[in-house]
């Protein structure tokens, strides 16, 4: 197995773990953590293709990931602020209770 394939496999495993967490956890904070893990998995792919890919030039992969980290930081800040605001209203962070589904 080549180094590029190894990176791709590791990042897809990370993506699957994040997705499983985002789909199965009931706490809103952990759903957000799962989404962050998925974003990070995509970032690893950018760096791996920049490092090992045939058409990489300059610092393209690195700069793309820098912007991606910026977007992820904004997303985490706004998401956690929303969780806090919802918690103030409903006194819960449990997704099943927030959506009113039967438990």
């Amino acid at each position, binding site marked *: 197995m080549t180094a590029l394939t190894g990176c791709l*496999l590791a990042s897809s495993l990370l993506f699957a773990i994040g997705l499983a967490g985002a789909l199965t956890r*009931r706490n809103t904070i952990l759903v957000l953590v799962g989404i962050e893990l998925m974003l990070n998995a995509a970032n690893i792919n950018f760096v791996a293709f920049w*490092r*090992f890919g045939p058409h990489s030039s300059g610092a393209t992969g690195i700069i793309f990931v820098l912007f991606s980290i910026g977007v992820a930081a904004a997303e985490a800040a706004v998401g956690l602020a929303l969780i806090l605001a919802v918690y103030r209203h409903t006194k819960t962070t449990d997704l099943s209770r927030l959506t009113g589904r039967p438990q």
Partner: protein
Amino acid sequence: MRLMSAWFLLLAGITVAGACAAMTLRNLVHCALAVAVGFAGIGTLYLYLGAQFLGLAQLLVYVGAIAVLIVFVILLTRGSDPDLPQPAGTLFLGIVVAGGIFSVVAWAALHSFVLREAAQLAAAPTVRQIGTELMDEYVLPLEVIGVMLTAALIGAAIVAMKEKQDSR
């Protein structure tokens, strides 16, 4: 063809173990600590791949800021209710969906003939080079992301403060 090294396996293993622990542990504070380990593992993966600046940025932003933010929110919303597991049906469905997506992507990564590797590794750019490119070729995205981060900061502060103004 470059083969995977033992270092890569070790770093990837730590990262995946941290992510797994973050998504499976019941105690929320333990989850936050485990996800910090996972983020740090991703940062070391960047260092392994020759992107030093990115690895340090990942450590600063994710382990230094986002993990701490997550811990803060967990402590601020503590005592709401215990984190119960989902009903078995939802749990099963989520794991099946994630497993299916992983197997499709992994199959594609293992069997794709498009994934040729370069004859030589991309040279690791210096910080000076990254700064020059940011100020030269990517100056518009840089400005846009600056505006977006400012807007997100103000928006997050307003969203988190709103309740206090209403109750006054």
